[in-house]
């Protein structure tokens, strides 16, 4: 008798690789042949995973259309059999897959739309943390501000896009026709995070993006002001740096601060 281990391996190969060896272990029913009955499992595997991908990448699905998305799902499922307990983790390689697949990578906006959707999903159920309150910053004496270091909210994710994928995503999300895909003259910095229970993203200008990245790397506020001055001009540099910081606090992108 085939052992349980061998039976399960054969059953799995039958689903993943179309191997028919398992059919010799299965009986026809009174009403149906074994190939059709085993086919229920083969079909369910692909259908369920394709549905998971469509749930996770809703705007990418809208952008590609049913046929285009089905093609993506089929090749992704073949390339990445699921090895995680959580169904939500199954689609985690989609952005990378779109970036490296010979066919899909010709349309760089696809990987970036997927990257944005994945970042929003990750932010949605990322770790909880109380956002930094403006009142806490107000307690810090003016002469100590140069030593101030802030901590990003644990759900914050920084992205840099080369295409107008964020515009495409926004239009699709709002039910509008998306603009034609195009490469941007300069890379676009994006910040994704969760505000209360809603995952959001925001486009950052080059100066703000530079300051965010430095702040996230625990650079002190005094040094950040100098960097902003170097980046965008000395005039009003401290004010610009303070404005960015206040915006971040208002939007809940920070979780804490300390003096270093």
């Amino acid at each position, binding site marked *: 008798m085939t052992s*349980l281990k061998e039976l399960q391996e054969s059953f799995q190969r039958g689903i993943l690789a179309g191997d028919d060896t398992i059919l010799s272990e299965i009986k026809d029913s009174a009403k149906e042949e074994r190939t059709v009955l085993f086919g229920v*499992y083969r079909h369910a595997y692909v259908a369920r995973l394709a549905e998971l991908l469509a749930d996770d990448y809703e705007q990418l699905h809208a952008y590609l259309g049913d046929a285009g998305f089905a093609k993506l799902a089929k090749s992704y499922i073949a390339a990445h059999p699921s090895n995680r307990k959580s169904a939500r983790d199954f689609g985690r390689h989609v952005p990378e897959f779109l970036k490296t697949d010979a066919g899909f990578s010709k349309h760089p906006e696809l990987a970036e739309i997927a990257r944005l959707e994945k970042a929003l999903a990750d932010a949605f159920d990322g770790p909880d943390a109380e956002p930094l309150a403006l009142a806490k910053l107000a307690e810090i004496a003016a002469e100590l501000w140069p030593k101030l270091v802030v901590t990003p909210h*644990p759900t914050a994710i920084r992205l840099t896009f080369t295409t107008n994928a964020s515009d495409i995503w926004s239009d699709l999300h709002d039910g509008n026709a998306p603009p034609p895909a195009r490469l941007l003259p300069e890379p676009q910095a994006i910040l994704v995070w969760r505000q209360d229970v809603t995952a959001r993203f925001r486009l950052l200008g080059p100066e703000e993006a530079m300051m965010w990245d430095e702040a996230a790397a625990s650079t002190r506020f005094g040094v950040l002001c100098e960097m902003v001055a170097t980046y965008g001009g000395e005039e009003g540099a401290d004010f610009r740096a303070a404005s960015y910081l206040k915006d971040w606090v208002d939007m809940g992108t920070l979780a804490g601060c300390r003096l270093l």
Partner: protein
Amino acid sequence: MAAAKPPFLGFGLGLRPQHYGEILAGSPAVDWFEVLSENYMIEGGQPLRMLDQICERYPVVMHGVSLSIASTSPLDLDYLARLKALAERVNPVWISDHLCWTGVHGVNLHDLLPVPYTREALDHVVDRVSQVQDFLGRRLTLENVSSYVTFGQSEMTEWEFVSEVAKRADCWLLFDVNNVYVSAFNHGFAADDFLNGVPRDRVVQFHVAGHSHEESHIVDTHDHPVCDEVWDLYRAAVAHFGPVSTMIERDDNIPPLAELVDELEHARSIAREVLARPLVGNPRLAAAE
């Protein structure tokens, strides 16, 4: 391990994100909720916040789909640790999963795959259930799955297999009425034989659900209202097992909450009629367990 059989909770629903707002805003006629364990094995955000609020107001049971109790690959200790951590947060009345396997060699096929009803598989499952129960420090509840194939090597019926697992591993059973109906149709056995073949004192929960009929076979899709034939089998199950915590399971084409509450009311009326006395879940009893 605690010996007392879990209490009768009354009539419950599977907790689905689409209904969070309605549940918390109103007081739907739902006695308890079943939550999908894997959906809450996350770090934070709205799902966990909603879960905490539901747990404050209702008895909750946890239902998983990834334990893979019958797999011949080693138990996933990381998954078990996360399941245990979630149980500490939720304090569920019981924890259930399926009598099936979901993959081998690290692959998860995200399906509830059938087990051959052999003595070898029985020994294997009993040993695994014992390991899981030792790890969790509580009894596990196992559900019979819908299946589409019959293995030539099977040496006993499904109900004999299920019953032996429950007795030897000392675990509870979740009697899925729809799955019994589906498997009975697919394999040509009498659903009543299954019903009568399962030990009465082991069954702590019923699932009632809809399915898709493909003429030569039925697929367990949970995307339709419960059909008359499944209600008939539910009626027979209540008559046989007595008051058992009952739940409507809907995973796809999820309707407004009110529609599921109506379906649940139908289950309640059947149980009331069969047992000829009012049945009321006792959340206080559940909380005290």
